[in-house]
């Protein structure tokens, strides 16, 4: 029987990863009102890019983060400029944007199959199996670093959205795009930027994911769902809300092992998703947009 402290620790470590997976999805939804169904595909693509840089050039996965960040930012800008901006906005664009981005996901998946084959991959480094002792339990060094990076991303994102001119413009567009046009904010630029940043965050999350879990071209759907649970639970766009929600989801998942057979614990995320969508569609912390 695992100790309570161990389980709480692993929940916290998992939460960092889940939060990072969720920020990009939340940002894009908050600003553009588009659910980025390609999110899972970008996670997978980021994981492969990190893996490739490590295998081919021996680049440490954590050092490859800036490269992945830039590459997926460019991908995001391209996706927005080439595809998403041509869609009708608002309610009418709902199913259309969903299907379009789903198409993008299928294409990404196919490219990954063609380039990397369908085999499972993991990023294995010299320190992958080392651990440190915290509160009397052994914690994987890798997971600890991932948590550190997740916290750093959250802080940077928070400061960026609050303290910089661009961040304030992004929040303003999320609240009311029409008024932004009136005061001279180039909403088109903000949309492009937000989609780029959201995609970049997904790519980074993909690398973090790849340092812990094995992945293949078909990965991404359960990650997308978890990210979505976290975003919905956290109230779309609130960064502290997302972090708290990630902690809740991770805790529920870790403790589900007590009540469910091991095989079914994967289903917990899905059930949680449906339950939250039905019971609290506004999120636990209400409707706050990019607060």
């Amino acid at each position, binding site marked *: 029987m695992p100790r309570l402290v161990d389980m709480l620790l692993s929940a916290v470590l998992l939460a960092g990863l889940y939060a990072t997976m969720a920020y990009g999805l939340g940002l894009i939804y908050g600003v553009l009102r588009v659910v980025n169904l390609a999110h899972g595909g970008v996670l997978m693509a980021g994981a492969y890019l990190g893996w490739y840089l490590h295998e081919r050039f021996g680049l440490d996965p954590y050092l490859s983060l800036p490269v992945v960040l830039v590459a997926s930012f460019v991908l995001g800008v391209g996706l927005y400029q080439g595809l998403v901006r041509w869609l009708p906005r608002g309610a*009418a664009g*709902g199913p259309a944007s969903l*299907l379009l981005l789903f198409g993008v*996901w299928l*294409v990404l998946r196919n490219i990954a199959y*063609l380039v990397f084959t369908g085999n499972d991959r993991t990023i294995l480094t010299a320190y992958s199996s080392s651990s440190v002792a915290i509160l009397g339990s052994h914690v994987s060094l890798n997971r600890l670093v991932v948590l550190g990076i997740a916290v750093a991303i959250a802080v940077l994102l928070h400061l960026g959205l609050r303290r910089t001119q661009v961040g304030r413009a992004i929040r303003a567009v999320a609240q009311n795009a029409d008024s932004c046009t009136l005061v001279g904010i180039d909403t088109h630029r903000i949309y492009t930027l937000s989609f780029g940043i959201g995609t970049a965050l997904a790519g980074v999350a993909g690398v973090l994911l790849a340092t812990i879990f094995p992945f293949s071209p078909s990965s991404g759907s359960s990650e997308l*769902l978890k990210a979505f649970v976290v975003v919905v639970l956290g109230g779309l766009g609130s960064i502290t809300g997302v972090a708290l929600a990630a902690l809740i989801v991770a805790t529920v998942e870790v403790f589900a092992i007590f009540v469910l057979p091991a095989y079914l614990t994967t289903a917990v995320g899905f059930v949680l*998703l449906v339950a939250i*969508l039905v019971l609290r569609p506004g999120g636990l912390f209400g409707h706050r947009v990019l607060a």
Partner: protein
Amino acid sequence: MIVRSPSWIWRRVDLALLAGCVVLAVLPVVLEPSAYTHNQLTFLFLTSAGALAWNWLGGFVGQVSFGHAAMFGVGGFVAARLMLSLHLPAPLGWLGGAVVAGGFALGAHPLLRLRGPYFSIATIGVGEASRLGFTYWESFTGGSSGLSLAIDGDLQYQLYWWALALAAAVAAASLAIRRSSLGLKLLAIKADADAAADVGISATFYQDLICVLSGAVVGLTGGLYASYQSFIEPTDMFGFERSITFVLMAVIGGVGTPLGALLGAVVFVLVRIYLLASYPDLYLGLYGVLLILIILFEPLGLTGLARRGLRWVRRAPAPPGAAS
């Protein structure tokens, strides 16, 4: 996106559908095609029926479901169980599967108050949870090793007409729904559920109704598919890929149009025959590109293209309200 066609198209569609069914019904007797072609056509009818029924919920009501594999799987496994354990004749098994799948779909009742992307993503959750749950329930589904049905050559052969009858009935029902007051109510709900409620159309009731009907038909398809394959396993029946195929066929053919999914199913089966064998690595990406092109350039898919073609041939100005 309200889709109404002028009546001259309707009459021709009816005639074409009827003629098509008659031709297909006598085809095996007259031409005696190879067993391979016979089987591929049976598969085409089954996929058409599933895609048409998906379109009732995804197209008519506008609730895009990524979880219809759940009903397909439930229908398939209940039918298989009824045949294996209770030794019921196949048609009764299929019917039982359809009823249970319809009931299972009613379980989506709480989801149906979600709209747009929320509903779609929730259905991914339901589909995946069902896959895991039914794979785990080994005593019922045989777990990951699946269930094998007794192979009955006569039934396999006759399945052609069962599947054709099912597809024809679902196509006729699609046309009937679109032309009835029910179809208009569904269009109203799709356009604006709140406004529909203001004129006395209960979105809750009609969405439940359509979800159950759509689920039951997809379940029935699943049952016939179980007999068609003689072997079914949960990861295939409940798989996300299967849910996707319903979406793809309907979108390629023309989502929201009554018979577009038929065209989509034809494309799907042709791709399966010609591309999957020679380029198994390319088919997902091909569908992805098709999806992107359709959404950007012709949201009504092949049906939209066909309508443009017809209009161009007749050189007539677009009839008011024909599309968009």
